[in-house]
Each structure stands twice: as structure tokens, then as C-alpha cells.
């Protein structure tokens, strides 16, 4: 059995490769689509981002399989919480739409699930840090990460401005996400022991 300490590293690589493929297919299909006449091939190109989404789900599953039992329990508890919240939101929203709330799509249910899953996982991780007496160290690390991402993105925007090419917000968001992932990668790969 592979050491559990390797699990976060493998997950980091597998998940981010899937995300890169997702971005490549979402962006790439717009450039390729107008050059394709065959309707079947066009349909395949249109739905191509589904493949990296499945790969990302598989990466999460493989991460789950490599975790130790305590982290498996935490992951499943966080998932159960997010599923419950998503079910309540999804079941309630149709009634809220009757009183004027905006119509939402299925992708919004996934966003609710992802956000509540992440919130629950962060809450559990925070309780672990407090129990280990590492709360202050964790807060410093989070603050350093936020500063690193904010300053990095600000400098990137400034450079764009100086070059006479104002950077769109979504490019800045993508850049900030890339900085965050790079920072997480640094943490995961610089640690000798488990980081999960």
C-alpha cells in the first residue's frame, strides 16, 4: 500500500491536470468548432469538457481511496453535509422562484455543493489545527497566502495597465487561482510528511 503521505501530492497532480484539460476543452472548442462541418464531430467537440470533469471526479475518488481512515471519515462527513444543504437549497429554490427569485440551472446546484463541501472540510481542518495547537500558525499561513495572491494579482494587473492592455476581471481571477494553486503545490510538495 502506498504511503498516505503521498496521497495529497498525487491528488494535486491528477486534479490539476484534469482542470487544465477542462480549461483547454472549454476554451479550445470555441476555436475549433467553426472549422468542423460534420455534425457528429461538432457535438463531440461541444461535449468534450465532460471528459475532464469525469477525470476530476476520478481524481477525487482516487484521493479518497489513498486517504487514511480518519480523513476518509472527514471527507464523507463533509460530503454528507454538502449533499444535505444542496438538497434543501434545490428543493426550496423552486418555491423561491415563485416569489421572484431568479431561475437557476443545474450548474448552480453543483456550485452550492462544492462551496458547502469546501466549507465543511475547512471547518474540520480548522478544528484539527486548534486541537494540535497550530491555530496561530495556520492563520499566519492563510494570511501569507492571501497577501501573496492579492499582491501577485495586483502586480499582474499593474503590468497589464502599464503595457496599455487592461486585464479583464476573468483573466485576473484565473491568474489569482493559478497563484493559489502554485502556493498549495509548494506546501504539498515541500512537506516531508502528510499534508492531507
Amino acid at each position, binding site marked *: *500500500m502506498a*504511503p*498516505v*503521505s503521498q496521497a495529497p501530492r498525487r491528488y494535486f497532480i491528477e486534479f490539476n491536470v484534469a482542470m487544465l484539460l477542462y480549461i483547454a476543452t472549454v476554451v479550445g472548442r470555441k476555436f475549433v468548432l467553426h472549422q468542423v462541418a460534420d455534425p457528429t464531430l461538432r457535438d463531440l467537440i461541444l461535449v468534450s469538457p465532460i471528459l475532464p470533469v469525469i477525470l476530476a471526479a476520478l481524481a477525487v475518488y482516487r484521493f479518497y481511496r489513498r486517504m*487514511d*481512515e*480518519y*480523513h476518509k*471519515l472527514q471527507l464523507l462527513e463533509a460530503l454528507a453535509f454538502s449533499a444535505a444543504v444542496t438538497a434543501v437549497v434545490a428543493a426550496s429554490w423552486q418555491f423561491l422562484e415563485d416569489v421572484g427569485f431568479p431561475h437557476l440551472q443545474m450548474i448552480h446546484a453543483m456550485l452550492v455543493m462544492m462551496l458547502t463541501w469546501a466549507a465543511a472540510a475547512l471547518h474540520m481542518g480548522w478544528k*484539527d489545527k486548534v*486541537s*494540535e495547537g497550530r491555530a496561530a500558525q495556520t492563520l499566519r499561513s492563510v494570511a501569507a497566502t492571501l497577501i501573496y495572491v492579492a499582491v501577485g494579482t495586483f502586480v499582474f494587473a499593474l503590468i497589464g495597465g502599464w503595457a496599455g492592455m487592461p486585464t479583464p476581471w476573468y483573466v485576473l481571477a484565473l491568474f489569482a487561482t493559478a497563484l493559489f494553486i502554485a502556493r498549495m503545490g509548494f506546501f504539498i510538495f515541500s512537506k*516531508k*510528511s*502528510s499534508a*492531507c
Partner: protein
Amino acid sequence: MLNKLRELRGERDWSQADLAEKLNVSRQTVNALETGRYDPSLPLAFAIAKLFKLRIEEIFQPG
């Protein structure tokens, strides 16, 4: 469950990370076990007992 994990680890001068590596679990799991926030599965309890060359009931007692 109560357990003597911290005491046994201390006697051997192992860090939580050392014990985690020997048991192939994360350091957070060792901490959760020592602080009583998590009770191990039977396979992990047997692995702990084997590592310390003790019986399970010599390490874990009902709380």
C-alpha cells in the same frame, strides 16, 4: 474510548509524525487518536497494538 497512545509514544521518544509514518496514517490522525476525538477501526487498533507489542485492551479502554 480512552487510550495510552501519547504515553506510549512519549516513552519511545517518537513524534506524532514518526508514529504516523510507522502506522501509515497522517499526523492529524495520530493527533485525533491521542486527543480522543477519533476511535480507530479494528485493523488500525491491531496495527497500533502490534507496533507497541501490547494487546489492544492494554492500549484502549472504554471511556
